C-alpha cells in the first residue's frame, strides 16, 4: 500500500491496521519519521512533491522490496505540504515470517525513498526558510543494496 497525502495520520493506528491485515506474518517492522527541532528555532517544514511521479516511484520501490524479500506486505505513507514540529512526516511498515526480512526490507524502503522518491523538504524558521540539502551518506546508503 502506498499513500501520499497532505493530511496528518496516526502512526499507531496505521501500525495496528497493517499488522491485523497480514495474517501469517509474525514479524512487523515500522519506521516513523517525525519533524524535530534539532537546532532550535524550527517552526515547521514544507514538503513539495511531484504528483504522479511520487506514486510511481514509491510503487516501484515497494514492488522491488516485495520481490527481493519474503514479505507478506509493505506499506509507505508520506505526507506533503506544511508540517509543524512534532508531526509525523512519513511511515514505512513491513511484515514477514522472518524478522531479518522485515528489517532489511524496511531499511531498503527508507534508503530508496530518501533519495529516489521526488520529495523536497524546506525548513521554516522565524528568520526564513531554506531547502534541506541532500546528504552524500543518503546516496551512499543505496550502495548496500
Amino acid at each position, binding site marked *: 500500500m502506498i499513500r501520499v497525502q497532505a493530511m496528518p495520520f496516526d502512526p499507531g493506528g496505521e501500525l495496528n491496521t497493517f499488522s491485523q491485515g497480514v495474517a501469517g506474518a509474525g514479524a512487523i517492522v515500522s519506521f516513523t*519519521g517525525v519533524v524535530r527541532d534539532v537546532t532550535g528555532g524550527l517552526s515547521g517544514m514544507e*514538503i*513539495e*512533491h*511531484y504528483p*504522479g*511521479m511520487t506514486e*510511481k*516511484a514509491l510503487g516501484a520501490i515497494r514492488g522491488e522490496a516485495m520481490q527481493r524479500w519474503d514479505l507478506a506486505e509493505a506499506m509507505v505513507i*508520506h505526507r506533503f505540504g506544511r508540517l509543524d514540529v512534532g508531526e509525523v*512526516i*512519513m511511515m514505512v511498515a513491513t511484515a514477514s515470517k522472518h524478522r531479518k526480512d522485515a528489517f532489511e526490507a524496511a531499511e531498503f524502503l*527508507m534508503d530508496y*525513498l*530518501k*533519495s*529516489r*522518491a*521526488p*520529495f*523536497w*523538504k*524546506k525548513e521554516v524558521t522565524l528568520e526564513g526558510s531554506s*531547502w*534541506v*540539502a*541532500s546528504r552524500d551518506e543518503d*546516496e551512499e546508503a543505496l550502495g548496500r543494496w
Partner: protein
Amino acid sequence: MQVMYFAWVRERIGLPREVVETSASTVAQLVDELRAREARYEAAFEDVTALRVALDQELADFDASLEGVQEVAFFPPMTGG
C-alpha cells in the same frame, strides 16, 4: 513539451511548469536552450551536477534522448523520508 520545475529550481525560474517548443534531441541540449533564455534560467541551471532530471516521470541522465518524451522535470536531489 511540458517542462516542470521543483523546489529551488522552481523558485529560481519563478514558475512550476511551462510548455516549451524545442528541437533539442537530448536533455543536455534542452538545458543549453533554456539557459540561453534569461538570467533566471541561467541561475537555475548554473550547476547541472546539482540537478536531477525525470523524463515522463522516470529518473534519467542528462544525455538521455528526448524522443517521444512529453514531460521533462528538473529538480534538486530528493530529500524525502
